[in-house]
């Protein structure tokens, strides 16, 4: 008797489940046909890391914080005129953690909204932003004028870097 009950129950509860599935026919699909259709990217999306080398002051902060040592920076010039002469990032190692973006006092470093990047070779994944400036593709960068004139002031007033406040 128990087995008949099992069969009956198994059948009935499966039909119940099927009704749930059947209802889904009338719910709009949530899937996106990726290459032709793209979902909107949120403001804080972390895509490829980009540096605007024209305003980077080569302070080395990002290099020091990076947990995987994928940044390399060399600067030239003194004081306010100091600018990066070499700034490379190794995309092989980068883990898109955005720690470097947070410490950057002039906001020259930012995560772009670009996520469709293909490399055919590892050497291409090391990018020097001084030789090969990347056109910004949108991202959480602040306006450049605001940040470029006085890095020290910017650092004090910036609300989102907690470590700079203390």
């Amino acid at each position, binding site marked *: 008797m128990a087995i008949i009950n099992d069969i009956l129950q198994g059948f*009935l509860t499966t039909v119940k*489940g099927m009704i*749930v599935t059947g209802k889904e026919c009338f719910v709009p699909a949530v899937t996106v046909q990726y290459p032709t259709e793209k979902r909107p990217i949120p403001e*804080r999306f972390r895509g490829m890391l980009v540096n605007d080398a024209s305003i980077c002051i080569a302070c080395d902060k990002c290099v020091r914080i990076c947990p995987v040592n994928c940044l390399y920076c060399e600067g030239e010039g003194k004081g306010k005129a100091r600018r990066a002469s070499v700034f490379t990032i190794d995309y092989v190692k980068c883990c898109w*953690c*955005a720690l470097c973006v947070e410490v950057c006092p002039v906001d020259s470093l930012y995560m772009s909204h670009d996520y469709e990047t293909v490399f055919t070779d590892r050497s291409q994944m090391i990018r020097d932003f001084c030789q090969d400036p990347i056109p910004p593709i949108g991202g959480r960068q602040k306006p450049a004028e605001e940040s470029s004139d006085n890095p020290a002031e910017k650092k004090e007033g910036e609300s989102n870097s*907690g470590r*700079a406040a203390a």
Partner: protein
Amino acid sequence: MITPAQPKPLQGEPLVVHMGPQHPSTHGVLRVELHTDGEVVERAIPNIGYLHRCKEKIGESIGYDAYVPYTDRMDYLAAMNNNWTWAMCVEKLAEIEVPERAEYIRVFVGELNRIASHLVAVGTYGLDLGAFTPFLHAFREREMTLDILEELSGGRLCFGYVRIGGVAEDMTARAMDMTRRFLKQFRAKLDSFNELLSFNHIFIKRTANIGALSGEQAIAYGITGPMLRASGVDWDLRRDEPYSIYNRFEFDIPVGQGLKGQVGDNWDRYWIRIREMYESTRILEQVIDGFPEGSHMGKVPAVLRPPKDAEVYVRTECPRGELAFYMISDGSKVPFRLKARGPSFCNLSVFEELTRDMLIADVVATLGTFDVVMGEVDR
């Protein structure tokens, strides 16, 4: 005359079958050595270590704040909770105050991540037993929680959002709206998920009364989290040792009752996760109603140098159980010693005991309820 040799009685030498490391139901790179006698598994020995990445040693060589992304990759299904535990540990070590708003955001992301993690657990558990549709339903809901977390942090899996002293970025109004919309329909979705899988008679037949873990056994093996509660032990750090601001919220701790079979069987372990999701929605509702104003980041020294010989042990309730960090500082920029206690690792230790003399198909069904994340087992 030559007498033919008498055939020896059949020797019951166990046949060793390797399940994994690339088996779909091991949820990662876990290799289980099955010593089988026919259909019955005499011993199932989990072999781990395929994903070992020296997490503890790395923690001893890089700075406190740079370690946050590494904690993401321990239990990658509940990255927020891992970040949070790490941040709490360092804050206790260096005596850093966290603003109230940051605590609210932390509870918010922690509970959302718990829902996301449990949805993976129950969805893939259906998949292990051959039910494909519930998996799609679970992942569709999970996608909504991930959208909210992406709106806040910018990442979808490894968030790196909870930082020492607070959280990386402030809460947004859009994320709040998304959460309200999500909460409005999530319970109904869970109810229909129950119809689809939890109360399906075939599913119950496959899981109830199998792999029952008693409360004493669970405590003896150091099992924590949903697995412990499914065995009837009423213990949840969020209520019994309230950290952060959990004492401000009202929620129940679901405990296994053996509704469909014994207490602590596979179905109970599965059901506890569904009920925890209901409770998490309750906490989330209270959190978004009571969001205080203020800063999302406390005062953190530019270079973190905790006092010499400070020693902390901090544990929190992650979706899989208690995650703890033990740390000794020698006054420098890096910890002198770091030890992580992962819930999956401890939970997996009972696997061999639990699967003794089980059928092969039930071993898969049992492993699924453990909800192990190999990134955390091996670290």
